[in-house]
């Protein structure tokens, strides 16, 4: 497979970039960030113009088609502007999870509604212990073929705006994936204060909430791991975009800000810090694009590439966001300047789905006999 973008893909990325930059202003991001629930109806609906809602979901399952490479490029651009709508939760997390299971009538209907932008959905992500039996806080029981969930999820991305919540729950046969409609009485979502105001999270309490089990049989565990690997690659692509924007902003500022009678960007201390951020981004870009190509090709080695990409992109966005604050000086520490929004996003995405260190440990387990 090739990590080299085709001309069509390069054009597509440019189109998406121009589209998002025209629609998403800092004011919009800040307005949504200040609210408890993250969404903006006109923006969300406008994604239909580029058929973004169902991207990366196969057409035969009700999606809009397009490969993981296109989806990754969209996520990169969304990361760059801190998209304040539940796209990652809906299209990447829930969309990919639903599409991973041989979709029946109900799942296809959900996927169709996702494609049309009519359904906001999410998936509860595993913590750092993954979906080990001990780490699963929700249990599922069935009577006469009807499943009900009990338990609590501490933090689920965009759960407050989601009509459909997917979660793993323990069953007597091991962990399985379930779908719950949040409108049911047995579901209570409570918005939580978040480190990153542009990535909303809520706790979810299930009290005998009616649920639909997705998929059958023993292959589920592998499917779950694959869903997490895909989400990890998607998040890495988003980090890449955020990192790029942080560097662009810092470089622009370094050209305009004068001290000692010169643009601070002419000082090597600033130049070399910017160059270091660029290097981290370019290294991450190579790893992320490679992982996207493996995702698009349904390659069995995705797990390793996903860890490489997430570790590299987490390091890059951390260097870029912290570097941007430093290069901006005092204004970079202020509430008024957007640098902190990116730093908070860098932190949240650096922790979600495993830190860079977690992924290095995972790689170490894959690559060595210990």
């Amino acid at each position, binding site marked *: *497979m*090739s*990590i*080299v973008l085709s001309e069509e893909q390069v054009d597509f990325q440019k189109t998406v970039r121009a589209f998002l930059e025209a629609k998403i202003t800092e004011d919009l991001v800040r307005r949504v960030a200040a609210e408890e629930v993250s969404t903006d109806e006109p923006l969300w609906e406008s994604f239909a113009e580029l058929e973004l809602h169902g991207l990366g979901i196969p057409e035969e399952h009700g999606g809009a088609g397009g490969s993981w490479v296109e989806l990754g490029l969209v996520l990169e651009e969304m990361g760059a502007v801190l998209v304040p709508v539940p796209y990652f939760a809906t299209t990447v997390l829930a969309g990919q999870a639903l599409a991973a299971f041989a979709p029946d009538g109900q799942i296809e209907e959900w996927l169709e509604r996702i494609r049309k932008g009519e359904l906001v959905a999410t998936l509860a992500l595993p913590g750092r212990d993954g979906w080990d039996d001990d780490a699963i806080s929700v249990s599922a029981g069935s009577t006469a073929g009807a499943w009900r969930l009990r338990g609590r999820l501490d933090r689920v991305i965009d759960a407050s705006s989601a009509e459909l919540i997917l979660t793993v729950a323990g069953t007597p046969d091991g962990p399985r994936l379930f779908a719950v409609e949040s409108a049911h009485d047995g579901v209570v979502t409570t918005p939580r204060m978040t480190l990153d105001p542009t990535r909303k999270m809520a706790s979810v309490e299930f009290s005998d909430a009616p649920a639909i089990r997705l998929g059958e049989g023993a292959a589920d565990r592998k499917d779950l791991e694959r869903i997490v690997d895909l989400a990890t690659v998607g998040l890495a692509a988003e980090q890449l975009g955020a990192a790029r924007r942080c*560097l662009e902003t810092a*470089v622009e500022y*370094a*050209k305009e800000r004068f001290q000692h009678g*010169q*643009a601070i*960007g*002419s*000082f*090597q201390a*600033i*130049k*070399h810090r*910017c*160059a*270091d951020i*660029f*290097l981290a981004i*370019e*290294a*991450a*870009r*190579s*790893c992320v*694009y*490679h992982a996207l190509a*493996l995702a698009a*090709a349904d*390659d*069995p*080695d995705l797990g*390793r*590439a996903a860890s*490489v990409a997430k*570790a*590299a992109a987490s390091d890059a966005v951390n260097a870029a966001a912290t570097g941007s604050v430093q290069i901006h000086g005092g204004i970079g520490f202020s509430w008024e300047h957007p640098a902190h929004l990116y730093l908070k996003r860098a932190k949240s995405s650096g922790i979600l789905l495993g830190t860079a*260190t977690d*992924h*290095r*440990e*995972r*790689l*170490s*387990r*894959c*690559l*060595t*006999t*210990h």
Partner: protein
Amino acid sequence: MPHDSLIKGGAEESLLPAALRESSEGFRRQVREFLEENLPADWVSVGALDEAERPQWMEQWRNKLVEHGMICVAWPSEYGGQGRSLADHVVLLEEFARAAAPTSLTVDTLAVNLLGPTILEVGTEEQKRELLPRIVSGEDRWCQGYSEPGAGSDLAGVQTTATLKDGKWVINGQKIWTTSAHEADWMFALVRTDRSVSKHAGLTFLLIPMDQPGIEVRPILDMNQHHHLNEVFLTDAETDADSVLGEVNGGWSVATALLGYERNDAAVRDALNLRNELERLFAVAEERGATADPVIGVRLAQAYIEVEAIAHGAVRGLAAALRGQPPGPESSVHKILWSEYHQRVTELALEILGDDALTPDGRGSATHVNTDVTNAPYSSRSWVETYFAARSGTIYAGTSEIQRNIIAERVLGLPRSPRPVPKT
């Protein structure tokens, strides 16, 4: 087992984009056949040869490459090449790496990888016909006369002068850090031909024969006590009036074009070497039980991540080259990534070796800079020498600091740093 899976880097075994892989399959088979037929049956690596027999083996091997058309394959056939595509060239690099076969001699590196492509780009028809076939055949060995005692990072500040006199250039000055000057027949050099203009505008790219009374070569030993570097003293040295590559006083643009050729295949070559070296380090770590230490495990994983970034970055650069995009500043990115990585990974290697690094023994590294050769057998001395050799990577061919300036100014568009006005 674990290090075996490392080299594949996912399901792709070739660094080439899929579309190009197929068109080069025929040539790949040809290269494999050549290697099977010509390498000894029990072949391990150049590093496994006895040090005394290595030079002779290498000369014989090079002759075989020439005989079978396995060197400079992407050069046009009228100039001694095989007229093959860049993709085919990458296939050759990959297959040679897989078989642990050398692609050229140390003394060839500059001519084969840098000077040749530059001659193809800016040379006259006569220069192409005369010089290129002799690089391919190994008849002419070249060294690079760039650095001077007073002109390192400030390369355009070279003071060696050349003056036209009776239809000959007469050259006076001193070059330093000249790799392989003691084995070279020719030097390509950046010299000052006009002092009345700004420093970049008065430089000429001259081709100078080494075998003449006006040239004296003195060895410099590196910190491994290896001899590959030299000082070259030019005292009324001479070369023909037409031994100029590019225009007279147009040497700076030739020299910078030449640096751009570091990109295409050098990045692929480096990635293959670094992958092989890291595999060897994983094997050493496993054998010593070092991977049981989670800190070492995480550092090895980080090394793996960095090599992946370098390898996939090489593919991106290659794709740009295959699309005909001119070499850009990405060679600076590659240079910093690999050279700084290489210092970190060799440091890790010495930590894994532990006390054994204190008393290096066994065979020495078969190279002077960068990694030891592909599939080099384990020896503590090789790792220690490679650690020291890695110090040079961030200095030669543009220091890390200069490369960062290039990225900041040419990629990010930051303003040039204030430069002091030269005293006149």
